């Protein structure tokens, strides 16, 4: 039974994160995310973050990364296996992906390096997958599309480079911890 206020607060915080991560773990495709979350739970270097939201964000980013790794691995295995009909190649691709996923987890779990790791690793993996399997032949003309009867004075289509995650992507929190915040 904790007697110190800070100790109690730490336990509450860890329970909160643990519960959150456990919930996400059920939705995560591989155990790498769980490892990352355990690192969060047992990270005592910064037991009282300024805001729990940062931990939630990191968890979510890691979940996204894990999902991306699994998709990329499945795609790679398929690409290697189909042309030659060889189980050996498919297994090799899967093994390489397992290494990549593990490396990503180790990098992401390093204290203070989560943001960089979670954005850099999947990029290089996705690049290698695309480069190995797709052949794009660029056309000779570049165009801008105009929507007839589009938004007045804003009829040209553009591609966003910003936005936020849809709320539906985020899990709800368990009721017993609603009142706790950092």
């Amino acid at each position: 039974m904790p007697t110190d206020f800070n100790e109690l607060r730490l336990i509450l915080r860890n329970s909160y994160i643990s519960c959150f991560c456990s919930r996400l773990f059920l939705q995560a495709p591989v155990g790498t995310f769980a490892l990352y979350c355990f690192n969060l739970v047992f990270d005592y270097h910064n037991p009282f973050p300024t805001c729990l939201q940062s931990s939630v964000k990191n968890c979510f980013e890691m979940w996204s990364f894990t999902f991306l790794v699994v998709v990329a691995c499945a795609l790679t295995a398929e690409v290697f296996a189909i042309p030659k009909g060889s189980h050996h190649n498919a297994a090799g691709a899967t093994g390489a992906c397992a290494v990549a996923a593990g490396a990503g987890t180790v990098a992401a779990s390093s204290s203070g390096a989560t943001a960089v790791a979670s954005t850099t690793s999947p990029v290089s993996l996705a690049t290698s997958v695309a480069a190995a399997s797709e052949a794009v032949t660029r056309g000779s003309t570049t165009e801008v599309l105009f929507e007839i009867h589009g938004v007045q004075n804003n009829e040209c289509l553009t591609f966003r480079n910003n936005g936020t995650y849809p709320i539906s992507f985020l899990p709800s929190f368990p009721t017993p911890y609603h009142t706790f915040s950092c």
Partner: protein
Amino acid sequence: MLTKLGEIVDAACVDTSADRQITPSTLNGASVLLVQRSFDASFRPDLVGVDAIVGFNGTDFKAEPAGAAGIIPVTFSGGELKAGTVCASGHDGAAQLTVDLMGKTCAQYTSTVVTATAP
């Protein structure tokens, strides 16, 4: 704010910079619309360092990695943006491009050739 990731929106035509540019191209021989702009790793890490095309992911037309699983390439033909039987149907109240899954109400578009600019 409940915006989605990477959707296409209507924007001012006085600017024809890279974020508005597409290049009709081919992917393994099939027609695609190559997206000229680049994307931030914090926003779309799946589009950094890869060729992005306009693709249909089952609900939206948006920038997607070329050759990604489950993505149907969008093409521009006859003034319509189409992915199989699905077509772009216009825009919603937030100027975001909408799609008609049945392909019955398709918006019309025109194209203007521009000089490609750096992503």
